[in-house]
């Protein structure tokens, strides 16, 4: 059995606010295998970003992880002291964010920012490129470390398709376009060859043609480096370009998860079906959109049962009272819905073992 890179079990991240406890992530479990891309889809406030921040150990106050396990290559991250997490961030797991303009430091040159994590992880045993333990006796001024970090950074910039990489190392972020900045972010994230890359809406702030370039780059680098990617997005188009499996979240819970084709072609949860029916299809005007009625409920006042019952077209009193559990309806395809579990599997689908 292949060992998962990331194994999250019953993760719960709550925010303790004045208005009550907000269950941002509420019992999320999933696994991510080597070289795989898992898409996390949902609307704003569904907990997809908070899941990623929980993995990185970067949940902002007043939030904290209240329960669950996050195993990165077998090592549980929950409750680890910050010092140890820092050793893993950048080297074993890295994150890229939506807006490359605000995530890069405007007053530092690009080179300094790209080399930072290599300099930090050089010789601490987490980065294979610096596997020989660094000691100040062999390299008293740290010059060797600096040189290797610089060379690796130039190599990374070249890899992410930045022209004239050694010159661009001296540039400031504002001298670059949005697409270039996102390439820099990717170079920083992948500089220490992490096993896990968390990408939070990496192309949302970019134009379509630039987005296509970045998606292409991510696909290429993943093939080359074998990184596992957790891709957070609201865009089913991006998901279908990049992901092997998809996890749909609503109000802090996973409502449906399965292989890409199953989610896109035979979605079973009413929310997934609603989301897919809300997306305009390119160049096709022969239909009318079917929006999901209403809005996402307030997270501090969720109904006791299924959180989607307030907007669901098929919900009844039972749904409102009892929260549904994820059930496997066909191989690897899990749905959390009372109505679906009751229905027989569709013809042609495998029988769950």
């Amino acid at each position, binding site marked *: 059995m292949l060992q998962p890179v990331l194994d999250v079990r019953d993760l719960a991240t709550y925010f303790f606010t004045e208005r009550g406890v907000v269950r941002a992530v509420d019992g999320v479990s999933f696994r991510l295998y080597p070289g795989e891309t898992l898409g996390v889809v949902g609307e704003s406030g569904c907990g997809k970003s908070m899941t990623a921040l929980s993995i990185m150990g970067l949940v902002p106050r007043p939030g904290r992880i209240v329960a669950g396990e996050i195993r990165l290559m077998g090592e549980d991250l929950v409750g680890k002291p910050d010092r140890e997490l820092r050793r893993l961030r950048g080297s074993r797991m890295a994150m890229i964010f939506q807006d490359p303009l605000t995530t890069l430091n405007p007053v530092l040159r690009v080179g300094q920012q790209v080399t930072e994590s290599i300099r930090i992880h050089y010789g601490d045993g987490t980065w294979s490129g610096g596997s020989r333990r660094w000691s100040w006796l062999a390299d008293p001024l740290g010059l060797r470390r600096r040189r290797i970090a610089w060379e690796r950074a130039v190599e990374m910039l070249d890899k992410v398709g930045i022209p004239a990489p050694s010159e661009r190392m001296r540039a400031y972020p504002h001298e670059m376009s949005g697409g270039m900045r996102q390439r820099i972010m990717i170079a920083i994230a992948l500089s220490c060859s992490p096993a896990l890359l968390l990408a939070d809406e990496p192309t949302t702030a970019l134009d379509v043609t*630039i987005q296509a370039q970045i998606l292409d780059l991510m696909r290429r680098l993943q093939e080359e480096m074998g990184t596992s990617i957790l891709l957070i997005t609201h865009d089913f188009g991006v998901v279908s370009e990049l992901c092997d499996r998809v996890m749909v979240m609503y109000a802090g819970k996973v409502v449906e998860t399965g292989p*890409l084709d199953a989610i896109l072609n035979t979605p079973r949860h009413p929310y997934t079906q609603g989301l897919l029916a809300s997306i305009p299809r390119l160049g096709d005007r022969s239909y009318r959109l079917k929006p999901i009625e209403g809005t996402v409920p307030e997270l501090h006042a969720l109904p006791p049962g299924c959180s989607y019952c307030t907007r669901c077209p098929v919900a009844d009193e039972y749904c409102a009272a009892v929260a549904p559990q994820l059930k496997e309806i066909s191989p690897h395809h899990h749905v959390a819905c009372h109505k679906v579990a009751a229905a027989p599997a569709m013809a042609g689908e495998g029988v769950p073992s």
Partner: protein
Amino acid sequence: MRWTPMAAAGAPPEPLVQVRGLKQYFPLGSTWVDRLLGRGSRWVHAVDGVDLDIHHRETLGLVGESGCGKSTLARTILRLYEPTAGSIKFAGRELTTLSQMEMRQMRREMQMIFQDPFASLNPRRTVEQIVGLPLLIQGVPRADIRRRVAELLEKVGLSPSHIDRYPHQFSGGQRQRIGIARALAVNPRFVVADEPVSALDVSIQAQILRLLQDLQAEMGLAYLFISHDLAVISYVSDRIAVMYLGRIVELAPAETLFAEPLHPYTRALISAVPRVGSRGQVRERILLSGSPPTPIDPPKGCRFYSRCFLKEKNETCRLVAPDLKEVTPGHRVACHAVAGTL
């Protein structure tokens, strides 16, 4: 059945909005270094010679990447900016020469919906004040305003009982509905919708698109619908104009544009859209290199020259800007290679 405003109305020959040769330049402040070197002040060519017709009850989609000038074009058409050159006719009346007072009268006919439902509503005003303001300006008696606002709220799918609430008490989608109610308060004929759904979640986006369609059918509106999202544009538009660096490069009926895009930029744009269920599917995929050049003193010839991937491109493209030429009825393209003017 798809709703077709053009078919329902039998569009009259005279377009509602007629834009000719419209230019909007913004000066960049010249520094002492520029003066020392004898350089004149530099200009951002945000909109650089645009011809456009918008018909009654029609939705014209305007698509392009950020910085291509689509918002500037829309605002210049409403004369929120003073155009550098060109003419704008609304229902046959030239707008560029109107005085501010006359323009204010004209704005009763032309309104705008903005992208950001958080920034475009005054947080210190109630819904009644926000939606009622255009009515107040147009001289509707105060006594009637409250009743009118309540009607408008109902029309855009909000409860009239929310009339005394403040913007922060609403969700993003509801705020966008308030913005729409405000635009429709004065019964306009022409509405500019500048990225009206970009800030919204997918499910809410669909609600607002449906609402805009229903209102168009009901009130006979013409929309200039701006978006960077090709799927949204293709869904709402009757005709689509593709903009690149201040110019319109292609203009065609929606179906035609997606079935046979002619301009290399349009082809690249359409092929770049990530499509649901497209993984592993073979399709033409054009990856453009680089990003658009800066609109500060842009290239002389074809604006797309630096990123163009056509084998036919040559010196003519680099030096002579192509005109928007009609290649088949209703389908206009600004490309030497396509129009055969190389």
